């Protein structure tokens, strides 16, 4: 029983990070109809930049992370600008463009930081909390808190600010949004930048829990996307539900199926996508089927 709760705690901590990744995907998908295959690579860059600021420049973790988010947001703006000519025209080409962008980012990371990767010491040095035989590292609690705060901030942005409303309008009907005077390109750029910053936050947070390497974004990106689909694109509660869901599923799958856990998660996910592409909470905002 203790093992069950321990696995649950682990699944929830990672689930919070998956929720952040899912939200980043979701934001870009809603506004641009684009699944950003470079999302995982952006996450990886965020993890590297944050850990570089934290380890080499010895900045406090609380400063290193927002700094990484800013840097990564700029990268997101650059990618969006380059791919803008394809927006709303040819989705397959745009998909491939993001794959190319992801490949470039990974190569850049290898060139700058080498391919061997680095461990990041946990910024929370206290002993893990022991609750009824279940060990909860202090850092995991920090991750959950930060994720919750980020979700709240994002929801407020989308619902209360002009830019947020503009992004929602573009998501619903980009032609009507243009007619209403919204600069769609700029709105998309903001969406992409925020998505990238969220990915960076996820990467920076997950660094101390895992290991920072140039290929870390591959499986995290796919897990994040699975979470976004599971919960349904286009809503913050959906991202949370999907993220926690995938976190828990993969934690238990890893225990049961060990080496095959990725495969199991995938097959489950494929079946879900086919049965219900709109996810648990989903709304069909952009239909590309």
């Amino acid at each position, binding site marked *: 029983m203790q093992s069950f709760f321990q696995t649950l705690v682990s699944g929830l901590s990672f689930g919070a990070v998956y929720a952040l990744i899912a939200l980043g995907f979701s934001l870009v998908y809603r506004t641009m109809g684009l699944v950003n295959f470079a999302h995982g690579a952006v996450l990886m860059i965020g993890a590297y930049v944050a850990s570089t600021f934290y380890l080499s420049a010895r900045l406090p973790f609380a400063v290193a992370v927002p700094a990484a988010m800013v840097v990564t947001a700029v990268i997101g703006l650059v990618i969006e600008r380059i791919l803008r000519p394809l927006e709303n025209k040819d989705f397959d080409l745009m998909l491939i463009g993001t794959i190319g962008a992801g490949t470039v980012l990974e190569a850049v990371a290898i060139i700058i930081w080498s391919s061997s*990767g680095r*461990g990041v010491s946990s910024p929370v040095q206290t002993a893990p909390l022991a609750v009824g035989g279940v060990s909860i590292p202090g850092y995991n609690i920090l991750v959950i808190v930060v994720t919750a705060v980020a979700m709240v901030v994002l929801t407020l942005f989308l619902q209360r600010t002009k830019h947020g409303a503009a992004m929602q309008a573009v998501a619903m009907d980009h032609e009507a949004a243009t007619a209403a005077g919204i600069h769609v390109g700029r709105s998309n750029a903001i969406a992409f930048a925020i998505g990238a910053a969220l990915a960076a936050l996820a990467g920076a947070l997950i660094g101390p829990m895992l290991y920072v390497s140039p290929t870390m974004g591959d499986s995290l990106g796919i897990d994040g996307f699975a979470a976004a689909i599971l919960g349904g694109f286009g809503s913050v509660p959906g991202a949370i539900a999907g993220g926690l869901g995938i976190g828990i599923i993969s934690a238990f799958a890893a*225990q049961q199926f060990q*080496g095959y856990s990725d495969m199991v998660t995938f097959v489950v996910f494929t079946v879900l996508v086919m049965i219900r592409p709109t996810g648990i909470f989903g709304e069909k905002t952009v239909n590309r089927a």
Partner: protein
Amino acid sequence: MSRRSLCRFGLAPALAVAVVALAVAACSAPGASSTAGSGATGSGTASGPIKIAVVDAQSGSDSDLGQFEWRGVSLAVNQANAAGGIGGRKIDLTLYDDQGDPTVGVELAKKIASAGDIAMFGTAESAVTLAMAPILESEQIPNITSGQSTALVKLNSPYLFLNGPTGLTYDSTLATYLVKTKHYTKIAMLTNNDSYGAGEESAFSSSLKSLGLAPVAAKVVPADQTNMTPELTAIHGSNPQVLFIGAEEAQSGLIVKQARALGMTAVIAEGAPAGTPLYMSTAGTANADGTIVSSPYLGNGASAAAAKFAAAYTTAYGSAPELHGAKAYDGAEIMIAALKACNGCTGLALASAIRAVHYDGLLGDFSYDSSGVGIFATAIGIITDGKIVPVS
């Protein structure tokens, strides 16, 4: 489209040309004149530099090992060249990146054969070495490898030599120490699923079995997984006294770090990877302390020769060496000794010369048997305050 119909009509004459060309070609197959590799020539007729290849992962997740090996070999070769080389001829090293991918390795085997390299150092991954071995054998290029898998030994290739003990040696020594000397009874295993981890899993579990013990838990994780908490949670449930890890340096460090975060107090036991600075830095010095290491190279202070080697290495590269660098250094020294003994020979003659070398190296006394293993024992140490201390 008229171009299309032209293509259709053009097929017939093209086929005719092709048939004629085939007839002409059948008389002499291409490449017939250069089937034998350049390493085939027996005696050291050439003057000029002796070309040796170093093949290792310089990219990808195993690139650390590749770099250690390159540095160890380079140090030995540079020292030898400074002292006059092989009868006046310098050794020329060329580095090739196999990216940790066996099929890239296979291509590289052909590349080094056609480039005129007469011997090879590497690789640090048994899977890549295994893939390259048949080609190196047919091209008669002797290879000293850092790999330790028993599959290498089973090949029985006269051209393949290991620069350290086999995985079975590491693990049986460790198992014997844990069970016979320390009397542990509850031992759990966590290994990964790449060729190193799979080899460790089978070697350690068979060693335990021959001592009459079965592991209380045994889990396998994917080699690229960075979150081992689910598997560790399951292992934690069976309350082991010892956790044996079969994974590379970084993943092993992560396993230890995450195990301690879960509240596991089991002693960590491992083979070669635990004896490296990367393991200690990834695990964190506090967590790495107390790890039982089975390794033929227990640290740069273990002997006078080791200290001398470490000083030279640090001067050359700015960081202290560890096991893989030491192994590579020993392997290179053996190759140099063989080359000196046979005066720069190549092919089967060089392989025989390597086998005839008796070398007292950093890892111990080397004397190769017919299957390519030259050293048959490791030592046990415990990590204390960030250094490996031999157990008395």
